[in-house]
């Protein structure tokens, strides 16, 4: 056409160091470095490969759920029932274990129950068009309620040793990488690849930016959301398998309050609660920042609740910094 060259359009915006440095991931990297430096300074026990590896036990299960939750949050949904879901998964595993089933069946059952519970959430949200925050507040009570009705004041503690040694174990004798942490790392790579390199990932972002336009673009919005709920449930099931194995016991209050910790991980990772933005790299960095902050501070025996204050501050300040800088840059 005659005016093919009417405007000159670059392929990419020219490189701009400042905006590169102000990317969320860069800020998180700086934060992570700061956390490591500070922790090393305040405790001689921090930079110890065995200690650090043990520390990962306490956040890997949550981080695994956070991966799926991140995708859900990108599509403007949320699942607050994940922790309660763990309770139901663990419950079913415990009951089956009492009946004498072996580890493979238990693992399968944990995953299946988790995915089913996720499907319940997904169906309620997508079929009835309900806001997920409310649905999952409801199913949170429902799921934990089920555990409570079945277990009452009892605990299930008879688990096959294969399961417990998996939950408490390391990938290889002598290699200080716990199974749960290794699973998290592998899953993080898979999630990052899917989200950032594949069609489905692009569609997930599109749904988060503008669900209506996504529908008009031929994306099966409700379908995708449904499967993301199932995926989140599945990850909760996986976390339940690992956690049950690790502590070898099931009570109705297992994993109590994890939902907010997981949401905190996701948000600090730069995944916007308004949908559409975020990276898995950011999430992984945030997992390390939170995990190492908590571990480092508890090494000097700062009470958990004071650490919680710090994390609250960290969350607010770290989100405020880029917003403030952007404002300030916009003004000049």
């Amino acid at each position, binding site marked *: *056409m005659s005016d093919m060259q*009417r405007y000159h*359009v670059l392929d990419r*915006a020219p490189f701009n160091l400042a905006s590169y440095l102000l990317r969320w991931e860069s800020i998180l990297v700086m934060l992570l470095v700061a956390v490591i430096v500070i922790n090393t300074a305040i405790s001689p026990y921090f930079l110890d490969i065995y200690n650090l590896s043990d520390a990962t036990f306490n956040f890997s299960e949550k981080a695994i759920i956070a991966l799926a939750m991140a995708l859900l949050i990108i599509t403007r949904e949320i699942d607050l029932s994940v922790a309660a879901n763990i309770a139901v998964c663990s419950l079913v595993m415990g009951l089956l274990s009492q009946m004498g089933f072996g580890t493979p069946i238990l693992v399968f059952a944990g995953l299946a129950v988790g995915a089913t519970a996720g499907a319940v959430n997904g169906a309620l949200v997508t079929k009835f068009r309900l806001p997920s925050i409310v649905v999952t507040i409801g199913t949170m009570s429902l799921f934990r309620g089920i555990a409570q009705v079945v277990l009452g004041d009892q605990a299930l503690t008879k688990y096959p040793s294969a399961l417990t040694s998996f939950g408490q174990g390391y990938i290889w004798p002598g290699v200080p990488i716990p199974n749960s942490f290794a699973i998290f790392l592998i899953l993080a790579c898979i999630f990052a690849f899917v989200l950032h390199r*594949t*069609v489905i990932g692009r569609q997930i972002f599109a749904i988060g930016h503008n669900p209506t336009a996504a*529908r*008009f*673009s*031929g994306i099966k919005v409700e379908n995708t959301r449904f499967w993301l709920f199932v995926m989140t449930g599945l990850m909760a099931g996986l976390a339940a398998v690992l956690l049950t194995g690790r502590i070898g016991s099931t009570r109705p209050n297992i994993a109590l309050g994890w939902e907010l910790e997981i949401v905190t991980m996701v948000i600090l990772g730069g995944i916007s609660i308004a949908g559409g933005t975020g990276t898995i790299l950011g999430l992984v960095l945030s997992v390390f920042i939170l995990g190492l902050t908590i571990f480092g501070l508890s090494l000097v025996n700062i009470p958990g609740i004071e650490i919680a204050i710090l994390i609250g501050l960290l969350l607010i300040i770290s989100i405020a910094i880029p917003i403030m800088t952007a404002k300030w840059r916009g003004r000049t």
Partner: protein
Amino acid sequence: MNSQLPILVLSGVSKSFPGVRALHDAKLTLHSGEVTALLGENGAGKSTLVKILTGIYRPDAGEILIDGKPQHFNKPTDSWGSGIAAIHQETVMFDELSVAENIFMGHMPRKKFGLVDWSLLHSKSAELLKRIEAEFSSDTILKTLGVAQKHMVEIARALSHNARIIIMDEPTAALSGREIDDLFDIINQLKSQGCAIIFISHKFDEIFKIADRWTCLRDGEYVGEGAIKDVTQAQLVKLMVGRSIDQVFPKHNVSIGKTILEVDDLSNATEFDGASFDLRQGEILGFYGLVGAGRSELMQALFGISKAGRGTVKVNGNIVKIESPSDAITAGIAYVPEDRQVQGTFQPFGIRENITLPSIAHHAGRNVISYSSELATTRKFGARLSVKASSWEQRLNELSGGNQQKVVIAKWLATKPKILILDEPTKGIDIGSKAAVHEFIGELAGEGLAIILVSSELPEVIGMSDSIQVMHEGKFIKRFSGAEISPEAIVNAASGGAH
């Protein structure tokens, strides 16, 4: 007329956004009792100027004089105080609130203790509605109104300020025939009351009908002004675009091929009834009707957005079940929606990601997306529609409305459809781009694409289409073709009169 002092003088106004110079040393002069048309291509800075005049943006430099006195607008209420009111390009409406609240939001009449004076609010609103001959009451909840009625509420709101300067940023973009005439009646009424009016539109027939003067912007800069009676459309277009555009509706001589789409008795409970038509390769079928005639609803049902209750759709002679847009895309149908903000664009995505989204599977071998393949497509369609941007990664919310529209069209062409449905494709885009779009539509038809063109702009429908289907209140009235096509007959049919 120009002997009197101008009511508003704006001079040396500049405004930049990060990376974009929206206005540079712009100027504008208004006189009482005159309509001034503000002209410019998409992204020329018209809406930005409006937002500066209404206190929404603060200019980086420049001066605003009203009655010779300098003004500083920091927030919308400041500009109301100086007698300026505006109907913005984006709808400024609250669906859940009543008409009266919509009119007076931000300046409700109040009684003791700052409580809202509901009775005064409603009586004032009723008065305003009566003045513009609206037929709904002031306590109607807005979302129950149709588009044209909503538009009247916006006009009532502008009037509620008793403003002497009224700005209308593309007020006719969502209106058709009769409603536009109603609007012009109101404008004339305001003129006679001594108001100065800024009228922004990309439709020249309207400009020549209503405006007294014109001011033109190009790339944010002032390029000239004058009286409407002294210029021709070609001169104005040249000023706006910087070159001349010869043909607005290029009618290609295309050999029309075999029937590709057959729609039989498509109906749903509330929106359209008994839609039957067929479409051949290379054919452009226009759909005309008043706003709210149900054209978009029909097209959306065809595209799988909503469910039709009854009827069949055949593509290439085979019945297809279209239950979702992805089914439609698979069947080779593409739909450029009418509401680009809500239905068409992903604002935080860049141009590339927007354009390739519906056809993303073509760029992904085994699900993994290839960036270079995406970029090639983006360049091809972006350049062909002359999208103006700094880079292909620029976010959509940084583009002007018209350029966003081009991206939306590009993204559907990239799906390589067999049947292309265009719903108000040139709504809000400037004359130059419009010509490019029309040219392109013609070319596509030449390549054998079957096209449905839904438009509320009569010249466009008549100029582009081989035949025209008219709808009224959800029903098919008549399909005009060849010599039957005349503006009078079509408008008559669209208002339900041709039975």
